[in-house]
């Protein structure tokens, strides 16, 4: 039997779910729409990947974009359906400015029964001057698919 998406409010879900890796990074809800979600990664000295330059590591930006695109898929599906990230490609357009929070916006631009295609950006204040660009796919993992 095919599983149906379970509708949910991403703001409530992300605010209540402060456990695990997303909670450790301090990732929080910003906004969402019919096929997208925006999350924030607060700046923290613990995220530094290049001590000499004070720039945060790129790993947390992947985690941010993974989560934002993931919720974007659920928005477009009309609710939660178990899925797994198949692949993500991230282009680092410029280093994030030290001290600034990073905003990740993930959008699902195409859905099939099994695969969701996503894209998005990360920026640190100006969406027209992004720090990273992401493209990736998710695959459904639920029973009956």
């Amino acid at each position, binding site marked *: 039997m095919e599983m149906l998406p379970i509708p949910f409010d991403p703001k409530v879900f992300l605010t209540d779910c402060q*456990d*695990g*890796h*997303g909670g*450790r*990074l301090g990732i929080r809800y910003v906004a969402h729409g019919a096929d997208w979600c925006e999350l924030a990664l607060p700046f923290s*000295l*613990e*995220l*530094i*990947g*290049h*001590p000499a330059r004070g720039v*945060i*590591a*790129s*790993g*947390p930006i*992947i*985690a*941010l974009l*993974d*989560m934002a695109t993931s919720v974007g898929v659920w928005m477009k599906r009309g609710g939660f359906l*178990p899925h*797994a*990230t*198949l*692949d*993500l*490609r*991230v*282009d*680092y357009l410029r*280093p994030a400015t030290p001290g600034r929070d990073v905003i990740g916006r993930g959008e699902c631009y195409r859905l099939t029964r099994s695969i969701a295609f996503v894209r998005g950006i990360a920026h640190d204040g100006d969406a027209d001057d992004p720090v990273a660009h992401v493209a990736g796919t998710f695959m459904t993992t639920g029973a009956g698919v």
Partner: protein
Amino acid sequence: MKLPPYAALLGASIGSEDGTAAPVLAMPFGNDVTGRPGFVHGGALAGLLELAAITALEHALAAEARGEAGFKPVNVTVDFMRGGREKLTRAQGHVSRLGSRIANVEAVAWQDDRDRPVAAARMNFLISG
């Protein structure tokens, strides 16, 4: 070889160094790297792979007496092959080409069996100096 503060957040450390190959990193399972219950977060796996790639590049630059060179990541492609379970994850990078300006680096992450990877990454770096 010293890992950045982000490695401490992940709980990742250098597990073994045999001199010639790049060091193997080790990341224990724990709440700080959990995604959906019982599984490692994809972002934590990607972060570990990036650290392994960076460590491999530092290792390769040092072997060519270019240890002072700086580098920036240009991009990363991560393939997630299996769910990472509640156990230690290891990762190792391999520099497939080290040029004067660009380095191409691969990294693989596994748990029990290196031949059954949980995730793999390809990274390109721009080298300066």
